[in-house]
C-alpha cells in the first residue's frame, strides 16, 4: 500500500521553452505527487509534455513557474551541483532506449551508478550482483549491452536505477522498445521491486497495456493534467 508521505511533489508547475513569439508552453500548471511504494503512470499522446514532466520531477530541468519537492527538499531553486547530488542520491532513471554504457558489462553498468560512496567495494559488488540476480540476470553479469536482448537491457536498466537505492524512480517510455509480453513482464518486475524496496515510481508512457501495474494513472494532454483515470 502506498504511504501518504509524498516522495515527489510538483505544485503548479509550468514549463515554457523559448521566449517571445517562439515561446512554447510544454506544461501548464501541473500538480502531481507520488508517495513511497506508489506507482503512478502518466499517460498521454506524443508531445503532450510527459518527458518534460519527468525531467522536472527528476531535478534535471527547472520549471518556469511552480515548485518541485523531492523527499521534502525544495529543488526548484537549487544550484546545478546540488541538483546533481540530489539526482545521484535520490532519483533512479529508466530510459526508453535503456541507455546503458556500451563499454561496460551489465554488472559494471550497475556498479558504476551504485558507487556513490556510501558503500565499500565489497558491499557495492554484492549489492550490484544481488540486484541483477533478483532481476534474473545472474548469468549475464559479464555480458556487454550489445550481447543482451532488449528485455535483458531493460532489466539491467532497472537494476541500475535501483542500485543507488533511490527514493524515487522515474521511467520514460520503458516499454517502447519491448514487445507487449516482455514489456508487461518488465513493468511487473519494476512494480514488484518498487513495492519491496518502498520506492515511489513515476512512469510516463503511451502504452495502455501497462496501466494495470500502476496504482494511479493520470492523463496528460497539451501540457495539462486532464483526468485521473
Amino acid at each position, binding site marked *: 500500500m502506498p504511504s501518504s508521505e509524498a516522495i515527489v511533489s510538483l505544485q503548479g508547475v509550468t514549463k515554457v521553452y523559448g521566449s517571445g513569439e517562439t515561446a512554447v508552453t510544454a506544461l501548464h500548471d501541473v500538480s502531481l505527487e507520488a508517495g513511497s511504494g506508489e506507482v503512478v503512470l502518466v499517460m498521454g499522446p506524443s508531445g503532450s509534455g510527459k*518527458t518534460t514532466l*519527468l525531467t522536472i520531477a527528476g531535478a534535471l*530541468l527547472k520549471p518556469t513557474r511552480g515548485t518541485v519537492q523531492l523527499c521534502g527538499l525544495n529543488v526548484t531553486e537549487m544550484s546545478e551541483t546540488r541538483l*546533481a547530488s540530489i539526482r*545521484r542520491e535520490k532519483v533512479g*532513471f529508466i530510459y526508453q*532506449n535503456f541507455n546503458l554504457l556500451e*563499454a561496460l558489462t551489465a554488472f*559494471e553498468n550497475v556498479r558504476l551508478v551504485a558507487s*556513490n560512496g556510501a558503500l565499500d567495494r565489497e558491499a557495492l559488488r554484492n549489492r550490484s550482483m544481488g540486484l541483477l540476480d533478483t532481476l534474473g540476470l545472474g548469468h549475464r553479469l559479464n555480458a556487454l549491452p550489445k550481447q543482451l536482448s532488449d528485455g535483458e537491457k531493460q532489466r539491467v536498466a532497472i537494476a541500475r536505477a535501483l542500485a543507488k537505492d533511490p527514493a524515487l524512480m522515474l521511467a520514460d517510455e520503458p516499454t517502447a522498445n519491448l514487445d507487449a509480453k516482455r514489456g508487461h513482464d518488465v513493468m511487473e518486475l519494476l512494480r514488484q521491486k518498487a513495492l519491496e524496496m518502498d520506492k515511489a515510481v513515476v512512469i510516463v508512457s503511451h502504452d495502455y497495456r501497462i496501466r494495470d501495474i500502476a496504482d494511479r494513472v493520470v492523463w496528460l494532454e497539451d501540457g495539462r493534467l486532464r483526468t485521473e483515470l
Partner: protein
Amino acid sequence: MLFVARKNLFSERTRLAISVGGVALSVFLIGILLSLYRGWDKKVGEYVEVVPADLWVASEGATDFIQSASVLPGFLGTQLRFVPETETVSPLIVRPLALSRAGGPQDRKFDVQLVGYDPAIGLGGPLEMVEGKSPPGPGEIIIDEAMSDRYGLQIGDQLLRGTGSLTIVGKSAGGDFVFTQVAFVTLDTAADFLELEPPSQRTFFLLTLKDPTEKEVVAKRLEAAIPGVMFASGEEFADETRDRVLGNVLPMLIVVLMVAFIVGLSIAGLTIYTATVEKSREYGILKAEGFTNRFLYGVVFEQSLVTGALGFLAGAGLTVLLAPFAQDAVPQFVVLIRWQDVASIAAATLLMSLLAAYIPIRRLAKIDPVTVFKG
C-alpha cells in the same frame, strides 16, 4: 573514474591504437631528435674538452676548433714559454682537409681535421690509441677509429691530397666530430703536407699552467699584453666549437621538435575529441544519473593521460630499441639518451595529454543531460 576511462579506451581498440600510435610517433621523433642533438653536442666538443690544456691560444676572432681561420706566428710559442705562469706550450697546426685513399676512387673524399702536433710535448695529440703506433713519424698519420669504421680505412692505407700522401700508422679514439674526424701528424709533416708559408706559422697554442686555478687571470693578463691574440679555457673553446657547428642545426631542430609535438597533440586531440563526441550520449546519461562535470572531466583526462602514457612508453621504447640500429647503419647518427631528456619528453607528453583533453572537456561541459530522454 579510471575504470570508466579504461573501459571506454579499450572498447575501441582501433581508435586507441591510432591515438597511442600518434603520441608514440611524436615521442619517437622528439626522442630521436633530442638524443641525436645530445650525441652531436657531446661528440663535437669532446676532443677540445678532453685535451688537458688549461688555455687555448688563437688569433683574435677565431674562437672555435673546426672553422677557425686562426694564424699565429711561430715565435709566439717562444714568447709564451717565457710567461712565468706557463708550464707547457704546445703548438698545433689545424686544417680541415678532404683526402682520398690511394687505389680508391679519386672522387671519394674523406673530411679530416688534420692536427699537426709536437710529439715531444704530446699535448694536443691522440687522446687514446686503440691500434697501431704513436707518435706518427714523418709522412705518417694516425686516424680516428670512427673514420676507419666509416670509410673502411686500415693501417697501411695511404691518404692522398694532390701530390702529397700520408700513410696510416695508427687509430685513436675521441676525435670524432660526427661530420669530420681528427687525424694526427707531426708539426713538420703538417707544414710540408699543407705547404704552409711560412712553415713556422701555427693555428693554436695549448698552454698548461703551473697553477690551473689562475687560468682566467692569466688569460686576461695575456690578452691585454698580446694584441690580436685570444686565450680561452678548454670548456669555453669547446662551447664555442659546439655553437659554431651546431648553432645552425639548433633552430631547425627546434622547429622539427615543435612539429613533432603538434603532430602528437593533433592525433591524440582528434581521436579523444571524436571519442568524446561519439560518447556524448553516454556522458549525458552519467550527468542525468548525477555524476558531476568534474567526474566526467576526470574520465576524459584519464583517457588522455592513459593514451599519453601508453604513447610515451611505446615511443620511448622505440627510441631506445631503434637508436643503436640506426647508429650502426648511419655512422653520423650519434645518439645520446639522457634521463633528463627522457623526463622532459615525459613532461611534454603530459602537456600533450592535458591539451588534447581540453577541447573535449569544453564539449562535455555543454552536454545537456535532458537530451538523453530524447529517443
